[in-house]
């Protein structure tokens, strides 16, 4: 089943590319099937079936096709299938090829999450880049080439460094293969470990992203197709925290501890700085981009704390923010459909003419702000809780960022919905009702019943924390 889940979207994606006329149907069916399979897989995981499977891919070089769901992967997998489905549901007016590419991306993302072999992980990691680049390049706005080059160069520098690290970690560490368990059993210590960790770190910092390697992010979002589909998928692709959690930290515990103070500072500053910048934005997508960046900073703060709570919170936040940030980008798409612009300023006064739209927007924004009861809260809370044990000072900075989120998000919200009415707008259409309801359901469910997910995450988070020395 795990293979079906990973490759089903790929098949549908290719089909959608070949048959542009049926693209939308194929997209919905593919993403829907993936959603169902994902839910079933998650259920199965909770029942104790990880679907582990392993077969040599390149036996001579110790590369395996090895996949399995663990708690982290399963939770994030849910976020991926849910958000992809949402996105495809919402983006009903995109070029057909985009649907295909989105499905290809979904496939790659699921592969990233499931991979238990470092090279396989890398393959999925990079393979996902291709549709992402194509989506931006083919369907982006006027500045797309610039954005594309920025995005590609940052990503590729990071990933090629990681490739060097991958080679080093096995051959200097002496592991017999690239399987996660083998690699963890043969850690790479000393200076070589530091360097290799730095390589991994840079790659994942690009993808988290963390200051100062985030500069591709605003352009990436601002130039992508206005429907929000590409942005939602792009949000899912921000798997840096996951990569750190799954690979970088377990492989180099020693190096991580040496870097930890700096990393905490970096994470906190990213959170605050991004929040600050977000406040000054007048463009929906840029604002969301910086807002999401700020959240990733908070997540990173938790993860770098090295405590079980922090690690758990980071992944939870990653999953939750994937859903609500993705939804917010889709929401931005809805606004663009109505006003033909993503500028915040001319789109005032929606609350009067389109109350349901405004309500949807409010829920999403509140989730982002971290209102208790919605999906944003548990993650942020646990992150700060975990981080406090590692560094109260930086936790305070991170806390400020969380507060600031309320300021910029609500400020933007007010700008759009509650200023003097400017021009009338249609309320939610059928598409928006569907995805809006679904998104709200997911957000509320994660907010009120986080235990389902934390239970799944708990063992992995504790194992990591134990490996890192319990945060001390």
């Amino acid at each position, binding site marked *: 089943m795990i293979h079906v889940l990973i490759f089903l979207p790929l098949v549908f994606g290719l089909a959608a590319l070949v048959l542009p006329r049926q693209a939308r149907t194929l997209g919905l069916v593919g993403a829907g099937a993936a959603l169902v399979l994902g839910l079933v897989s998650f259920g199965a995981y909770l029942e104790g079936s990880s679907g582990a499977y392993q077969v*040599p*891919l*390149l*036996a*001579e*070089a110790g*590369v395996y096709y090895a996949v399995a769901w663990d708690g982290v992967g399963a939770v994030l997998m849910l976020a991926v299938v849910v958000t992809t489905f949402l996105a495809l549901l919402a983006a009903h007016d995109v070029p057909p090829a985009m649907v295909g590419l989105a499905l290809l991306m979904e496939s790659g993302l699921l592969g990233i999450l499931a991979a238990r072999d470092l*090279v396989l992980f*890398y*393959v*999925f990691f*990079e*393979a996902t*880049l*291709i549709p992402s*680049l*194509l989506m931006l*390049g*083919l369907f982006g706005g006027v500045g*797309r*080439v610039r954005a*594309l*080059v920025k995005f*590609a*160069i940052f990503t*590729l*520098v990071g990933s*090629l*460094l990681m*490739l*060097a690290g991958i*080679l*080093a970690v096995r*051959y*200097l560490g002496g592991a017999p293969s690239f399987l996660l368990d083998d690699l963890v059993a043969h850690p790479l210590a000393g200076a070589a470990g530091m360097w290799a960790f730095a390589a991994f770190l840079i790659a994942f910092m690009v993808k988290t992203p963390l200051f100062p390697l985030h500069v591709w992010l605003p352009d990436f979002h601002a130039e992508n197709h206005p429907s929000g589909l590409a942005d939602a998928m792009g949000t899912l692709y921000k798997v840096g925290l996951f990569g750190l959690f799954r690979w970088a930290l377990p492989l180099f515990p020693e190096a991580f501890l040496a870097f930890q103070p700096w990393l905490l500072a970096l994470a906190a500053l990213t959170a605050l700085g991004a929040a600050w910048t977000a406040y000054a934005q007048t463009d929906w997508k840029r604002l969301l981009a910086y807002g999401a960046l700020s959240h990733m900073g908070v997540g990173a703060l938790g993860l770098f704390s090295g405590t079980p709570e922090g690690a758990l919170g980071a992944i939870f936040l990653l999953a939750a923010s994937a859903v609500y940030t993705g939804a917010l980008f889709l929401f931005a798409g809805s606004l663009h459909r109505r006003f033909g612009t993503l500028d915040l300023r001319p789109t005032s006064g929606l609350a009067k003419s389109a109350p349901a739209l405004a309500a949807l927007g409010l829920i999403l924004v509140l989730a982002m702000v971290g209102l208790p009861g919605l999906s944003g809260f548990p993650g942020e809370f646990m992150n700060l809780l975990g981080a406090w044990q590692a560094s109260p000072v930086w936790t305070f900075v991170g806390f400020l960022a969380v507060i600031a989120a309320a300021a910029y998000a609500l400020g933007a919200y007010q700008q759009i919905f509650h200023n003097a009415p400017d021009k009338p707008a249609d309320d939610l259409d059928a598409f928006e009702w569907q995805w809006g309801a679904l998104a709200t359901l997911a957000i509320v469910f994660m907010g009120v019943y986080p235990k389902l997910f934390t239970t799944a995450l708990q063992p992995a988070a504790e194992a990591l924390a134990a490996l890192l020395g319990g945060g001390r």
Partner: protein
Amino acid sequence: MTTLWILFLTALAATFVGFFAPARTAKVFTLLGLVAALVSLALGWGEPLSAYGGLYVLDPFAQGFTLVMIVGGLLALLADCDYFQRKGWPPFEYYALVAFAVLGGHVMASTAHLGVIVVGLELLSIPLYALAASRRDEASYEASLKYFLLGAVAAAVFLYGIALYFGATGGFVLGAAGSGPIYAAAVMLLLAGLAFKTALVPFHWWTPDVYQGSPAPVTLFMATAVKAAAFAAFARVLAAVGLEGPVFYALAALVLLTVFWGNLTAMVQGEAKRMLAYSSVAHAGYIAIALFGPDPAPAMGYYLLAYALSTGLAFAVLTQLDDGRGVRLGELAGLWGRSPLLGLGWTVALFSLAGLPPLVGFWGKYLVFLEAARGGQYLLVALALFAAVIAAYYYLKLLGAALFAKAEKAEKIVLSGSTPVGIALATLLVVLLGVLPGLGFGLFTAANAIVR
């Protein structure tokens, strides 16, 4: 043996078929011959074979490289269709010359005797001099002349190296022990001569002009088969003399210069064939990196196959666009719309060349880096990886020019004859071997050692 004879008879027959039948027949004949050679190669795969008193050694190493050369030849034949029809020149000699060149490359790869290597080298090069000129305009002649002069210099340097090698070791067979200044000079000259052929910086400077000026299908062949043959000899010589002392540092310097210079200069080119020429220079550097490993043959072979498929595919696409004056980046615009197959092939080829998984180019890069890492050359690997980022930039530029820019011309490109087959086949292989890397690499692991 069988492979050698099949290739030889194919070339010979292709020379004469054209007198009695239209050029198309010569093409079919050559294609069949190459396929037959491929089959005979497959039948004896992995089993070393030696003939003519050890002058001809078809060991797994040679088999791997021959495979790459035949693939290059097949691509060059399959993709040529429209090109020569547009030029109004259906030359049956084209097919015969390609067949002879493949034969030469095969000979070059399948021997450890320097004299035979040099004969193979000439048998490979001389048809190419003629092929490069085959468009019969000034650019083509210029490319041919430059290729010829440089090739002849390389051959002369190589030959002088052989002479000194003979003097130092008393024989022509690689692997004899030698020492002293004459031996050292011999080794340096041998490697320099082959560095010309493999186009390692600073011996590369003929490449861009020649690649740009030659007819596109010929460029395709040069970039694939010729490179493979040259590297076969390069690897054998290097394996025989050992990678120690000055040779080591010289090669390291060459590799670094090659990957950086090749990639950096590629960035500023405005013509697609020229860009890919520099890219091929850079790729030569990556291939050479494998030589630092303890067992370079499989990784090299696999990289060459990956590279031949990818770059061959890219040139095959360019072949359909080239009108003889090269392909400016602007002319690529709207490729996907004009011909989806070309667009797909182009995209896949460039992503593969850039080394993105899950395409075959990634595994090639991965394996050569792995090989060098196993040899302990981490710094080299790191630097080469860094150069790969630069490469990604211009591959994106090429891709962007084709996919993301507004089309100047809207008319559809109609592919005829064997072209769609060739492009589709290459695209399929690039993806398939990328998804199942073991499939391709398994072929080369049999070639686990260069027979000395």
